[in-house]
């Protein structure tokens, strides 16, 4: 019973904090939107062949990539709040609570995921307005995929952040990780036509499966079998959640 309480408490906290920081909400939407407009419109306008090669309009192809990019960036960066909590002392309040730390961290990941998906939802509305060919019926499933993606990367972010002492350190790791993972995920171009040497890099990138599944729901095309996408995502989410809970459970002040 207390498990439900702590999950709810942490979820409540993350949501409250999120809605209080309105500028942050706006900031996290502008970035992916610029990618979508500048990259998407530029490519689809100047490279007429690209849409023919993919089989769909390039903007439609790019849309799920941008959605996943939004989710991924927001959720992974969300892990940094663990470091801020250490800096500002709130971490101690959680550590001395007579409640399960596993559920505390789960509640936190759920809260961050809800906010990440909300952001993604806002982006999606804009994208759907710009690209009418996207499947409206798939939106909910696409958001579901983004939710799983968010849990996965928020947990990873928390696991890394729990080991770090400075926000700057985490920021550095985030900067080094975020762009390669996005570029090597098939968010911006299809992976089918890539040379065989490069392909394995895409296959070990968890984001590839998120993008592929989201694209399946939003556009109706996918590079990989859908059930493979889903299996990989669920499996990795379970692993990363476990990892973050274990790291957090071992956190002391020593």
């Amino acid at each position, binding site marked *: 019973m207390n498990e439900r309480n*702590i999950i709810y*408490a942490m979820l409540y*906290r993350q949501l409250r*904090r999120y809605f*209080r920081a309105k500028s942050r909400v706006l900031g996290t939407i502008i970035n992916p939107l610029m990618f979508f407009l500048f990259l998407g419109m530029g490519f689809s306008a100047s490279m007429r062949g690209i849409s023919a090669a993919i089989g769909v309009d390039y903007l439609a192809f790019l849309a799920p990539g941008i959605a996943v990019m939004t989710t991924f960036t927001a959720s992974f960066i969300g892990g940094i709040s663990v470091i801020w909590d250490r800096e500002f002392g709130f971490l*101690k309040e959680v550590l001395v609570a*007579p409640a399960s730390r596993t559920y505390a961290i789960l509640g936190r990941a759920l809260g961050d995921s809800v906010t990440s998906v909300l952001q993604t939802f806002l982006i999606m509305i804009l994208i759907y307005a710009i690209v009418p060919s996207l499947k409206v019926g798939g939106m909910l499933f696409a958001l579901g995929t983004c939710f799983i993606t968010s849990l996965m990367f928020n947990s990873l972010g928390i696991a890394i952040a729990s080991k770090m002492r400075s926000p700057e350190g985490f920021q550095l790791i985030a900067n080094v990780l975020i762009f390669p993972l996005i570029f090597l995920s098939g968010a911006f171009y299809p992976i089918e036509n890539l040379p065989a040497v490069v392909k394995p890099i895409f296959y070990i990138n968890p984001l590839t499966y998120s993008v592929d599944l989201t694209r399946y729901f939003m556009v109706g095309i996918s590079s990989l079998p859908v059930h493979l996408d889903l299996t990989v995502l669920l499996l990795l989410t379970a692993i990363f959640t476990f990892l973050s809970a274990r790291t957090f459970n071992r956190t*002391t002040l*020593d």
Partner: protein
Amino acid sequence: MSAISVRNLVKKFGSLTAVDGISFDVEKGEIFGFLGPNGAGKTTTINILVTLMRPTSGEAYVAGYNVVEEPVKVRERIGIVFQDPSVDRNLTGWENLYIHGLVYGLRGEELRRRVEESLEFAELTKFKDVEVKNYSGGMIRRLEIARGLMHKPEILFLDEPTIGLDPQTRAKIWEYVEKLRDEEGVTVFLTTHYIEEAERLCDRVAIIDHGRIVAMGSPDELKQGIGKDVIYVRVGDNSSAARLLEGLNKGMLVSYKELNGVLALSVSNASKAIPTVFEVASRMGIRIEEIKYTQPSLSDVFLHYTGREMRDEEADWREVIRMRHRMR
């Protein structure tokens, strides 16, 4: 059963021994204080007692439970106010308390009522919807104390409860703590490097230095343990001093010294001895030019046992840093 029981507790950080084999018991319903300079091992001890650090060796029981083996049982029964703020600055006072209540298993109407009660106790009802980052240091302290009490703990830990606060807020927090003991019967374990805080507030004090307890007892016991009141009498010249000394009943003096016409008389109770000194002097026709007396303070006690003054310079410097940290 004692509220807190500690036996041969040791905590080492690498080659540094922060806590060096301390043992003590805190009885239920008392205010027990750790008095010592910064770096003496006070916070480390608290961190072990509240289950946030593991001791290197030794044992500690809080509310009857071993802090290493049954940390959750301990956590359920204690409230803590850390030295540095541990509230969420981006949430309001109300929200901070609400989350705390949830985490400690409260819900529904009960939870909401307790939140309001706690706000009232902290005298923050008016500011309940203000984000904590806009609170003053004293308001945050009050909020944290109210939060630490919200789940009705058996034992409350206060780590330097009044550090960096103005005298009025400090006095107010002392009143809170006394009220807690008197009305709620809460056991309080606090650390402080303020002599007057320990004297004013604590039923018993342990003086801690370099990770060891050098003396323990009630403030009065500790002060009496190192000596008595000292009366200084200036009579002008050495011969008058010698005559006055002769006239005094040696039974009331613990010891005495005479130097350049000043008599230093150690007595068990200065307020009773001073009239006698006047009486004897006037009977013998000796004019007293000046008289004063000093009572030993816990500061003298610290000096007596450690051979050092309890210097606050370093503490002040740290407080400035801490205040800056708080203001961010």
